[in-house]
């Protein structure tokens, strides 16, 4: 797997055609997705607050947080696939083949359908149920090309075999004639990936694509996902709660809690030197450090309490009900504190915490070293 490196200019040499990504009122020409002030909620319960981030072409960004923090909801809002009774406000712009002149939240269903599966596509968590059980997988892959008219019927048939081959499925011509139940979970997820990549989307959203897979299959599928988006110079939003996966796949990470992005930045910096207390807890609670980093058989530390039910998050800092450092100040909403310059803007590198983890000199010699050292320090502090 390619090493994560926060180089945002990487794709430039390959694709000089910057005019395709040009749009109104956004920094940089390479922005594929710009989400600004996204709010989602039911009529009575707000679920997402002021979610702001952007993705550049060729950039892989992780979206992490516990279950119920709003990760999937963010993805569905971007895709325009929110369930009935959920409404979204804010500004979501996508520049795929056309310039992002419109806010996707104002676009009608017919036009959104035209974008879905074409300019942007999505891979879901559960491969076992994501495919139609009564339809041959080849037909399901071909369908996405036929819907958008990217291939004729015969062209699609040929392309299906190519795509299935690209996602590493053996004997693709034969496999195209199988039904989903005849395939394993890993194979099905490859088919879902083939569907998502069929029309060369500018944006791929992956919602925990490997969580349901065997550990042995996870790495291969991740590799295919990364290769798929790299070949297409597509932007990827990768939702997961597996920090190790983020560390291997993504360059940048967004940390979500209580429907807000609480911290963001390059993976090495955020994981190596987390500032928000939630990020700190999340990293301490993960096995990111590995056996060597842990003392003997000490149990992993956990974040006290559980994620509140939707709409039950406290005012001010959403994390204060579970945070050891919370005081009266935290009843007010912590402002976004930029940590440094970032090509994707202020909101791409910073945090929102009144009592951020202390300033420490950077350990970073290599990203991996920074990760291990930083996390160990955090854990000691957590226990002390």
């Amino acid at each position, binding site marked *: 797997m390619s090493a994560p490196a926060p180089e945002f200019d990487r794709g430039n040499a390959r694709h000089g055609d910057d005019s395709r990504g040009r749009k109104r009122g956004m920094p940089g020409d390479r922005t594929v997705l710009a989400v600004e002030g996204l709010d989602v909620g039911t009529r009575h319960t707000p679920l997402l607050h002021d979610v702001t981030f952007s993705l550049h072409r060729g950039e892989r960004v992780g979206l992490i947080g516990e279950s119920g923090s709003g990760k999937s909801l963010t993805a569905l809002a971007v895709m325009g696939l929110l369930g009935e009774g959920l409404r979204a406000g804010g500004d979501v712009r996508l520049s795929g083949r056309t310039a992002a002149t419109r806010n996707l939240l104002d676009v009608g*269903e017919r036009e959104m359908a035209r*974008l879905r599966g074409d300019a942007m596509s999505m891979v879901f968590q559960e491969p076992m149920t994501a*495919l139609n059980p009564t339809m041959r997988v080849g037909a399901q892959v071909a369908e996405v090309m036929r819907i958008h008219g990217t291939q004729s019927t015969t062209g699609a048939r040929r392309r299906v075999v190519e795509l299935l081959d690209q996602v590493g499925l053996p004997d693709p011509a034969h496999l195209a004639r199988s039904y989903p139940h005849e395939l394993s979970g890993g194979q099905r997820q490859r088919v879902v990936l083939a569907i998502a990549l069929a029309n060369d989307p500018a944006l791929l959203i992956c919602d925990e694509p490997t969580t349901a897979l065997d550990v042995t299959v996870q790495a291969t599928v991740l590799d295919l996902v990364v290769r798929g988006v790299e070949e297409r110079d597509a932007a990827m939003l990768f939702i997961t709660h597996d920090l190790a996966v983020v560390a291997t796949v993504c360059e940048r990470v967004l940390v979500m809690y209580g429907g807000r992005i609480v911290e963001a930045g390059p993976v090495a910096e955020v994981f190596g030197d987390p500032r928000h207390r939630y990020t700190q807890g999340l990293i301490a609670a993960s096995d990111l450090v590995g056996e060597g980093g842990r003392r003997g058989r000490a149990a992993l530390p956990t974040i006290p309490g559980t994620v509140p039910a939707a709409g039950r998050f406290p005012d001010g800092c959403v994390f204060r009900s579970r945070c050891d450092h919370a005081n009266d100040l935290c009843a007010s909403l912590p402002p976004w504190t930029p940590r440094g310059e970032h090509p994707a803007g202020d909101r791409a590198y910073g945090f929102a915490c009144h009592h951020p983890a202390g300033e420490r000199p950077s350990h970073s010699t290599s990203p991996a070293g920074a990760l291990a050292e930083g996390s160990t320090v955090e854990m000691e502090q957590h226990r002390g």
Partner: protein
Amino acid sequence: MLLRLLHRAMVFVASVLAASVLVFAFMRVLPGDPARVALGINASDEAVARLREQFGLDRPVVVQYLDWMRGLVTLDPGIEFISKAAIGPQIADRLQVTLILVVTAMVLAVLVAVPVGIWMAVRHRHLDGLVMSAVSQVGVAIPAFLAGIVLISVFAVRLRWVPSGGWVVPAQDPVGFLQRIALPSVSLAMVQAAVLARYVRSAVLDVLREDYLRTARAKGLRPVQALWRHGLRNAAVPVVTVLGLQLATLLIGAVVIERVFVIPGLGSLLLDSVAQRELLTVQTVVMVLVVATLLINFLVDALYLVIDPRLRTGSR
């Protein structure tokens, strides 16, 4: 898939055999000698003995059973005790009438229930969907015979649009046939449609929650297209199950409606035969109904295999 179908066919044959033994046994377990029952208490012993001999009722039970089975297989189950009329042709005539009635009712029910059910599911959060749902709930509770009586009193008695009952062969008098089948088939269909629509609703609601429908939307299909192309076939499996059960109950349920509308169907024959204590006829009619029910189940099973590839294990 063929293997699977063969297996189902064997189960069907085995079920028919088991059912025939049960039906035969039940009739023999009933207290009293069939010949005595048929002739009445006042019949002389000689007359009873003659009838017993004539119909082989004095022979061992196993032989009687095999005789009856031979009659069934050769489609000639013999003649009635008293009237001496041939049973086979009678059943054939009556079965034809009942089938026309039941199939018409079922087709009507499906034509109404499927679109209504889908509508109720898609609009389940909206007023129109809820109202339809409530109406169908009431429909489920109305017995067919009551619906029949109400329909007769309105359309036959009050408005005089159609006769209140009776039957003509469709080929002889198509208009008269349509006039006579309208009310009984509608009264049968009303309840069935209400029940079926509720099953269609819940099947479609289940499918709407499925991940693959979200995948279909993520591919760029609009909600209606996604439901049409990916949802309905998957929703069909539970609906076909209910359809099969309904067809079977309709066949039996037609007994009452045939009475209400004076239709010479299988149900009327059954009731008449019971009244006249024609044991052999009762036994044979019951067997025909059982075979029809089992046949419907077999067809439903076969249909599953067509609809859902997951059930075709052993294919390829």
